[in-house]
């Protein structure tokens, strides 16, 4: 006992110092490359910088925020972002369905299926986007080629504002399905089988068991996926930049982050870094607000562990 105490006394300070030194490297990195830019962006959002330079920038108060909120293109970008986020409920329902089917012990080759579904998630977004650009091409795309067998002349999916976003939603569902399936599959394996047995004894059918047992049991995972996909959805940008250069037909591909990018880089003279910083903080508050709303709503449907 005494030797144990001695050990703790002699080793604890050593570990603390080591831990401190180990932590100080990433903390310094975060302070310089994370916290400092974060604070600077707050400051810049109230100023009008000259290009990318801070010296000589003029204070404009809340003007940047007011200009963004009055800009029809920003309002359009919000609409586009929300439209694109329709992929979230579709993905959630579809992935839960696939995970439930894969959880059936009679299904063989589950690992292969899961791998296939997961491949898009680990693929480069640039490669995936270029592949979809080709698939959806109006003239040479495989989608329209298949439709032509049915006698249907497919549209130019990415060149027409009416079909652009539905095409992007399909791409979004395909891209995130694998990740959702893996998490739902893990959640489903953790549901206590005794609950199903007890329900069967009470005469519950498959649908009742799914709604009354499975859904509540996996609700923490469903909640995690919902929160994260809403955040990712509000930040959607890279694939739109590739699939809709310049914003796409009728600016149908102009998402909020794409608008931010244009403000900060493409149109830096008329918008500028000040407005880009203001957009980023508006986006931050939107994400924080929606996430808080999600947490507030979760009290009614997410099971407590």
């Amino acid at each position: 006992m005494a030797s144990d105490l001695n050990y703790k006394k002699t080793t604890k300070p050593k570990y603390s110092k080591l831990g401190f030194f180990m932590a100080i490297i990433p903390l310094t990195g975060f302070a310089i490359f994370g916290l400092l830019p974060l604070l600077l962006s707050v400051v810049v959002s109230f100023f009008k910088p000259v290009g990318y330079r801070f010296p000589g920038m003029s204070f404009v108060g809340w003007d940047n925020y007011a200009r963004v909120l009055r800009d029809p293109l920003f309002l359009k970008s919000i609409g586009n972002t929300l439209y694109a986020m329709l992929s979230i409920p579709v993905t959630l329902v579809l992935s839960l369905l696939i995970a439930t089917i894969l959880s059936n012990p009679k299904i063989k080759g589950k690992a292969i299926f899961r791998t296939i579904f997961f491949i898009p998630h680990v693929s480069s977004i640039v490669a995936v986007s270029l592949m979809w650009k080709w698939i959806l091409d109006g003239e040479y795309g495989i989608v329209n080629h298949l439709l032509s067998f049915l006698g249907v002349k497919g549209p130019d999916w990415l060149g027409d504002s009416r079909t652009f976003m539905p095409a992007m939603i399909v791409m979004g569902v395909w891209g995130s399905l694998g990740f959702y399936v893996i998490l739902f599959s893990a959640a489903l394996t953790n549901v206590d089988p005794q609950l199903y047995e007890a329900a069967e004894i009470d005469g519950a059918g498959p649908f009742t068991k799914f709604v009354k047992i499975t859904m509540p049991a996996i609700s923490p995972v469903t909640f995690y996926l919902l929160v994260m996909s809403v955040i990712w959805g509000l930040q959607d940008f890279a694939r739109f930049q590739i699939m809709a250069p310049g914003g796409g037909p009728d600016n149908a591909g102009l998402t909020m982050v794409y608008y931010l990018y244009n403000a900060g880089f493409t149109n830096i003279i008329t918008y500028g870094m000040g407005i880009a910083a203001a957009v980023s903080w508006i986006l931050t508050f939107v994400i924080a607000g929606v996430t808080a709303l999600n947490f507030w709503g979760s009290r009614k449907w997410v099971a407590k562990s």
Partner: protein
Amino acid sequence: MRSGKKIAIIAVLILSILFLYACGDDDSIAKGKTQINFWGWGDQSEVAVFRQLVDYYNATNTDNIYVNYTQKPASGYETSMEQILSGSRGPDIFYVGDGSLKKWVELDLLYDITDLVAESEIIDLGEIWPTAVQRYRYDKTTRTSTPSSPLYALPKDIGPTVIYYNADAFRDVGVTIVSKDPDDPTVTENEMRGYNIEEKIFNNRIPMTWEEAEALAKLLTKSYNPASPTDYGYYTEWWFNYVWSIGGDVIAYDDGKWRFSLGDDRADGNLPSTREAFEYFVSLSTKLNISPKPNTISTVGKTNYFTSGKVAMMVDGRWSTVTIRKDAQFDWDVAPLPKHKDGVPAGHSGSMGFAIWKHSRRAREAFKFMEFMAGPAGQAEQAKTGFNIPNQISLAQSDVFLQPDQKPKNAQVFVDAAYYQTPGDWAYLPDSAWISVWAPTLNGAVLNGQMSVDEFFATFTDQTNEMLKRYAQ
């Protein structure tokens, strides 16, 4: 023993690295010289020519200058360069597009070369296309570009737009192609038009009128002529030559501010109004249906649409010549852009220039190199790539550029166009925010026939004018 092995492995690795380093750039020629950094981009053949040019310059220049050439990716070039040039480690000399120049001057990234050019014994601005030089002049205090505005770059090239046409398709529908200037002693009365509708004679040396181009395009459009080998007769994505031909423009500078003028309906003499000219351009794909809609032509691109034989005439720039030479499996050539019967020849051209970094400590040395690249010696080599027209007028008139052994046979059309073609609207103002208000809808819903021209102007005129106010601030 083990530690001995480790030491041996590390020693071998270090030696290998040193060996590779030693095998790298042969810097012996650079020793004792002023080194400057030159950044550019381009496809492999263009880059190869530039490397040769740089090597040649490094070996022969008597100014004690050594140039390090770096090829940058074309994708994202503008944005990445803006950030690099805003920092402290930019290249001394680099490419600047005509659409980026004003923005980069506003961002204080470019060196004013007006005096250096005036003092130069190699650069003679009188020998360079005035339409090319003018786009590199800009006065940021007034936000205007006049012949006396400061000069910030020298053109590397100029790429005019013309009609690329499928000569086989023309012949298939019974059109006779001739190539005779109006002052050609052999030219007949019937050949004195761009396209003689009655006699079906196409003269690729004379611009067609809108009516002639329309009649020829109908002959080559399946919905008008089922015997046509091509689906559509004509394709252009640009309104410039229509509106400019009658003296109109997309914006006008009135009372010290910019105004969106594409919808102006005031006609002048025999000429249609700007709005009517614009409406005619829109009608090509929406009413006349002689041109594919943007959502028909696919994301693969118009050049592919042309080379695959789906459209008989396509408006495009010189930069597409290399691709068309490679891909088109039919006889083809080029012709001037159509113009209004009472209007002037008009159209847009692209250009890339050489500029010097504002904060370069070797600006004079960089200019020496610029003199070589933008001067007669460097331009003669660059012209061989065939991408664009050299900046030197006399060189463009020679076989170095015209390349009579290669298509297009009527390459003189590019040279003729370079005299009058000016940059597109993306080079009008320091950035494209004002264009992004209306252009995506024009290129989408309007040209696809989902929005009328009236709705278009009702929706975007005020919005664009609101955006244009910001350029006056």
